[in-house]
């Protein structure tokens, strides 16, 4: 649905987006993760046809964004950063305006406006002027605008920014549900959002893609991901320790607590052997008639991956600035 090839954007000497490529298929929700200034908004502005790319190709639903902008734009619903709105119009007036620009009219337009107001819970404020709305409602009005023509492609720049926790939760749910039949890109710097709503995520830093995968794949890149936390009793600790270290799948062991008959610590399996290692630990303990009090594979945290991948970069850019 969306194909981006070798996309770059220069602002004078500044390289905001540097040779990015990715693809989003129908039924996929792609999360754009990255620190502020990473180039997320710039990338989205190019995909939506707002900014011309310096280099590269973008195609949306088969239409080239640069060569046939109108065809491409017709397939996209776009929620820009900070949810801009025409403040002098009413909510309904604004949605009617956007709907008409999207080529809707008459009963079809009314239906589309009502549907998007229902989706975003705007019926209560439909006759209210936009500049009297609270931030949450403004945001939803702009969101409704992006949905009005039921687009195949939805692009949202920080769609949960400035919302309260309940609203955030609701928007994530909405994105996940819509993602089943659309191709969606949304940007965020909130990591739990990626886990809650994305089928795949790209981490951007300094204008380049530094990681690309499912949330689980990304998490497995964290230091300590896949290690095994255990606690066992009923086997002499020193024996248990040397026996565990001798297991094929385990590379090393870090012990937190060592008492007479109790051993507690973390086992670091050889790469890719996490499942095998926990099985071996389990079998070992039962063969010795010991008691396994804890056995858990440690999941990497997206936070950690994010920080590890992007921190060197932000430091470099902030020292340069």
């Amino acid at each position, binding site marked *: 649905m969306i194909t981006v090839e070798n996309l770059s954007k220069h602002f004078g000497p500044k390289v905001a987006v540097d040779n990015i490529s990715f693809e989003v298929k129908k039924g996929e929700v792609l999360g754009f993760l990255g620190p502020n200034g990473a180039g997320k908004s710039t990338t989205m502005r190019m995909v939506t046809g707002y900014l011309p790319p310096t280099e590269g190709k973008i195609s949306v639903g088969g239409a080239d964004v640069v060569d046939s902008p*109108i065809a491409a734009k017709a397939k996209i619903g776009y929620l820009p950063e900070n949810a*801009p709105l025409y*403040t002098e*119009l009413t909510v309904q007036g604004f949605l009617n305006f956007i709907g008409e620009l999207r080529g809707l009219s008459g009963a079809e337009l009314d239906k589309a406006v009502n549907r998007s107001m229902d989706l975003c819970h705007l019926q209560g404020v439909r006759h209210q002027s936009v500049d009297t709305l609270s931030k949450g409602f403004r945001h939803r009005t702009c969101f409704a605008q992006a949905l009005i023509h039921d687009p195949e492609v939805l692009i949202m720049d920080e769609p949960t920014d400035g919302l309260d926790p309940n609203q955030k939760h609701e928007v994530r749910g909405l994105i996940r549900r819509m993602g089943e039949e659309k191709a969606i890109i949304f940007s965020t710097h909130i990591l739990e959002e990626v886990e809650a709503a994305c089928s795949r995520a790209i981490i951007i830093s300094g204008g380049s893609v530094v990681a690309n995968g499912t949330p689980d794949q990304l998490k497995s890149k964290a230091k300590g991901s896949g290690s095994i936390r255990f606690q066992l009793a009923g086997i002499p600790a020193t024996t248990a320790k040397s026996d565990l270290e001798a297991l094929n799948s385990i590379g090393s062991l870090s012990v937190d607590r060592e008492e007479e008959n109790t051993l507690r610590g973390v086992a670091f399996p050889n790469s890719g052997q996490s499942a095998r290692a926990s099985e071996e630990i389990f079998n070992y303990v039962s063969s010795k008639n010991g008691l396994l009090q804890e056995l858990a594979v440690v999941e990497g945290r997206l936070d950690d991956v994010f920080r590890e991948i992007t921190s060197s970069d932000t430091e470099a850019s902030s020292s340069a600035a």
Partner: protein
Amino acid sequence: MNSSTCRHIWTITKKELRSYFSTPLAWVLIVVFLLLSQGFAFLFGGLLEYQNASLAAFFLYVPWIFMVFAPAVGMRLWSEEHRLGTMELLMTMPISPWHAIMGKFLAAAVIVFVSLFLTFPVLITINWLGDPDNGIAFAGYIGAFLVGITFLAVTGVISALTRSMVVSFIVALFLCLGMIMSGWPIVVASIDGWIPGLGQKLAQLSVLTHYNELTKGILVSSDILFFASVIGFCLYLTAVILKTKRA
């Protein structure tokens, strides 16, 4: 122009007009225009005594009033989009930037048209009291309208450049002033005294020169062409500025 082009332009025009009349701004501007234009006609033309003279006075002062009125009407056209960030919405709609440019220009032109139209009661009164030359009046109205929308087109260019309405108002006002002054006999004479021939050349670029021809009651195609080309050039420049600002 195909039907979808017309529809998009009309959608933009409608929305702009709604914005204009949702605040008191458009109403205030129209009322002030009427008061000023009629006030000048009364004061300097002696409306009720010399019918033709009063119409002449009205047409004499209209460019000067439009010099302030058009920038006030046009200043928000693009500055407001820049300020609100809605440019990003507008330019990602499946329309050509030309639709937006034409639609906005048309909406502002409607305000100028309405303002001029509302001076009609005066024309009717004059016709009732005496026997003015309605052909001249008609040509004068065409000329006044062309001056008004030419100033709007100039203001549109400036407002595409800045997010500040105040800046676009002031800069546009000075440009409009320049476009009048360069055709003012005293200015023309003094420039000619300085560099012979230049004053006359500049005067050809003045709206006043071409407007004066029209108010004499002669609808000369070259004068109308002048206004049309200035407007066309300004709209084109607006498109170029909007495009460069995005790049």
